[in-house]
């Protein structure tokens, strides 16, 4: 039996449209077979989704579905199903929740598990993962899924960016990484062509890539309106408004969503409307995926007069003109450049500040641009990719930037078993006191 969570108050109308988006993505997977389309399990922010869109393959986002299960506090039964199949609780819970769902659906001969949140997700025709620097589950999860869905073909492509090294100029390695990424994206195209029986329409892909660029630019333009004091939108909403850029990149719907968001935020800024009435503290959500079952905690911050005008999490792109992308007519090469330059975007800044890190430079940039008073990190126990290294980021931030109040929350993305609301709120209370003292100290 799932435990219903309390509804969080949204600051923007745009965020209120997101459930429709998410349901639309899920129902698209369920409708796909009737429409003669293939469904692919896919992963976010890996440079592959525009190819799927161009090939009319419907992406089924496992990370999204696990997040939905968590937000509805109905993930436990799927986690237990995975655990009973020897998947440890210490593994990525996006993956184990989804695996539990898949295992259950296979046990029911393709029928959805009873009362599957939002009707469930379709069985895929293919699984597209990537072995790269975003996380290990992006290739181990597809392999594990195939053990239960043996007839479903799997593609894993490599996608890397030059590693940070304070003593090396990464630009000398960029072309190598772009060339490799392009070849791996081409391998994905061949895989999709084989399993759909269709040829890639390269003109269409180019149009989609161009639309993605415009969507990224509009996304950033809209988000930068949050620099206003008071901020018109916070991270709690951003955990919703990230959906189109993350799950619908390369679609008109995504572009239009951010255009509407821009207009809405512009109006709020012009009218001086903020997320909270008396904005006392401005915070950065500096790293970490959220606890999807506890988004109400943002409301708890608001009640204390604290807002998050900016977050690193799910800010999955940068304005393309800031990436100085080399001109190319090859859409795959363009995707590769955009990928590499996004992940190395803060390297130069880090090199200029001895002892710093690119991730910390990004946080500093946002702290200054959005005039933040403190930084909050969230450490999710089941995800190493985004959460290992948070202690170091906090330490380096203090060392190279100065004494700024920092809170590191602990929990998980999907698994509610380690979450303690009272403890979390106590820590937030203590952090608010710290912010107050810090402000007094600064005068």
């Amino acid at each position, binding site marked *: 039996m799932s435990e219903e969570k309390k509804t969080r108050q949204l600051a923007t109308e745009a965020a209120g449209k997101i459930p429709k988006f998410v349901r639309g993505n899920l129902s698209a997977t369920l409708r796909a077979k009737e429409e003669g389309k293939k469904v692919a399990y896919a992963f976010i922010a890996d440079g592959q989704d525009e190819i799927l869109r161009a090939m009319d393959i419907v992406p089924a986002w496992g990370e999204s579905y696990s997040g939905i299960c968590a937000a509805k506090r109905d993930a436990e039964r799927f986690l237990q199903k995975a655990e009973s199949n020897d998947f440890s609780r*210490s593994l990525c819970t996006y993956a184990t929740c989804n695996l539990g769902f898949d295992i259950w659906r296979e046990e029911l001969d393709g029928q959805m598990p009873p009362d599957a949140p939002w009707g469930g997700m379709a069985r895929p025709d293919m699984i597209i993962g990537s072995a*790269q620097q975003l996380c290990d589950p992006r*290739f181990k999860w597809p*392999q594990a899924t195939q053990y239960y869905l043996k007839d479903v073909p799997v593609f894993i492509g490599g996608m890397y960016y030059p590693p940070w090294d304070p003593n090396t100029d990464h630009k000398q390695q960029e072309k190598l990484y772009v060339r490799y990424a392009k070849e*791996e994206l081409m391998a994905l195209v061949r895989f999709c062509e084989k399993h759909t029986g269709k040829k890639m329409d390269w003109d269409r892909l180019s149009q989609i890539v161009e639309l993605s660029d415009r969507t990224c630019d509009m996304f950033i333009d809209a988000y930068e309106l949050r620099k206003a004091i008071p901020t018109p939108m916070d991270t709690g909403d951003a955990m919703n408004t990230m959906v189109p850029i993350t799950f619908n990149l390369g679609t008109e719907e995504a572009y239009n969503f951010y255009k509407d968001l821009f207009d809405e935020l512009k109006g709020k800024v012009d009218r001086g409307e903020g997320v909270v009435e008396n904005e006392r503290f401005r915070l950065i959500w500096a790293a970490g995926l959220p606890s999807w079952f506890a988004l109400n905690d943002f409301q708890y911050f608001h009640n204390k007069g604290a807002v998050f005008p900016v977050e690193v999490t799910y800010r999955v792109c940068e304005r393309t003109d800031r990436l100085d992308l080399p001109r190319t007519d090859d859409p795959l090469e363009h995707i590769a450049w955009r990928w590499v330059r996004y992940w190395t975007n803060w390297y130069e800044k880090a090199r200029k500040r001895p002892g710093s890190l690119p991730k910390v430079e990004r946080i500093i940039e946002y702290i200054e641009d959005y005039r933040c008073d403190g930084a909050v990190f969230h450490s999710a126990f089941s*995800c190493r990719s985004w*959460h*290992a290294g948070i*202690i170091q980021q906090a330490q380096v931030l203090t060392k190279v930037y100065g004494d700024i109040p920092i809170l590191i929350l602990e929990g998980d993305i999907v698994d509610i078993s380690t979450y303690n609301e009272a403890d979390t709120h106590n820590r937030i209370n203590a952090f608010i006191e710290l912010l107050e003292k810090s402000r007094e100290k600064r005068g």
Partner: protein
Amino acid sequence: MNEEKSYSKRVEEEFKNYGKRVKELKASGKRVIGYLSPIVPVEIITASGAIPIRLKGDVYEAVTTANGYMETIVCPFVRNVFDSALKGKYGFLDGLVMPHLCDSMDRTADIWNYNLGLNYFHFLNVPHVTDEPSLDFFKEILSIFISSLERFLEREIREEDLRMAIEVHNRNRGAMRKLYELRKSEPPLINGVEMMKVLVATMGLPVGESISMVEGLIEEVSERKLISDGHKPRIMIIGDQIDYTSLSETIEDGGGIHVMDDISIGSKAYWADVEVDKDPLYAIAERYLRKLKLPTFVESSDTYSETVEKRFGYLKDFIEEFRVDGVILVTFRYCDPYGFEVPLIKGYIEDLGIPVLYMEDEYSASTIPRAKTRIEAFLEMLME
């Protein structure tokens, strides 16, 4: 004192005082480069004139200092080794190579680099896919690694240096495989505990001394007389960096015999050679990307059965050749690469009719009693 005792004694000494020999060589002016995991091409470090030493942790040492720098959600082995390094156990290192084996290494590389203060640190961005573009890419990544080592050591690494290093490491691996052969008999000529000590001891020695030790041991062990006291369950251990003997001790104290491993300091590191008749850099890239049987690497096929056969088929050979009766599969907590393979590997082996005991462990002596209870129960089941 006869020869056998002297070799066995040296194994014991190197096992108990890991890194002692390399420390001596460092004191005499040699350069020492540490590395983690079997995916770092040691041939390149050897070709540079430096001595490679694979870092290990200490399951009997609680992680303390590292807690202030590295999250508890990181692989317990990685945390343990980092803790050892922070505490000065590897103070003799000139540098460190951290490979992109998994998220726990990739995402903590900066923590190592910034907090250990070594003169040389290199993150080796090993791809995980094994197709042709990945192989070309990896070759370039190795070239970058070579250039960085050359700059640090102020010494050119020539093609002939690479060829010589390949030859000597192939010889080392070949010797170790011969030693493994002596585990096939019933009873084996060398037991699991002794073999684990050899595996640990040799990875902390310069490759030439490792060869001498293993070849010497082969001679001695071959002369041992087989004394059977009845069939004992023959166990294979599967896992990653199991560089301690407690599992083998528990198996052998409990009436079983540890005859084979698929662990990263054991067969995973020794089973494949670098081909000598190819461009040396290409051959090294090929060996590390395509021949190492690690969950880090992805080799896809058209069908699931082909994919799983490519990934785990060698285990069938191990089970047959070493006459394995049961498998103990050990993963470390927070390890996604191994953790997601557990049902696959378990299913594959059980389909061969071989029982599997799966344990999630924490690279800590604190879990030995719990493991002991489960292993003893497993052995009892096998002996029924």
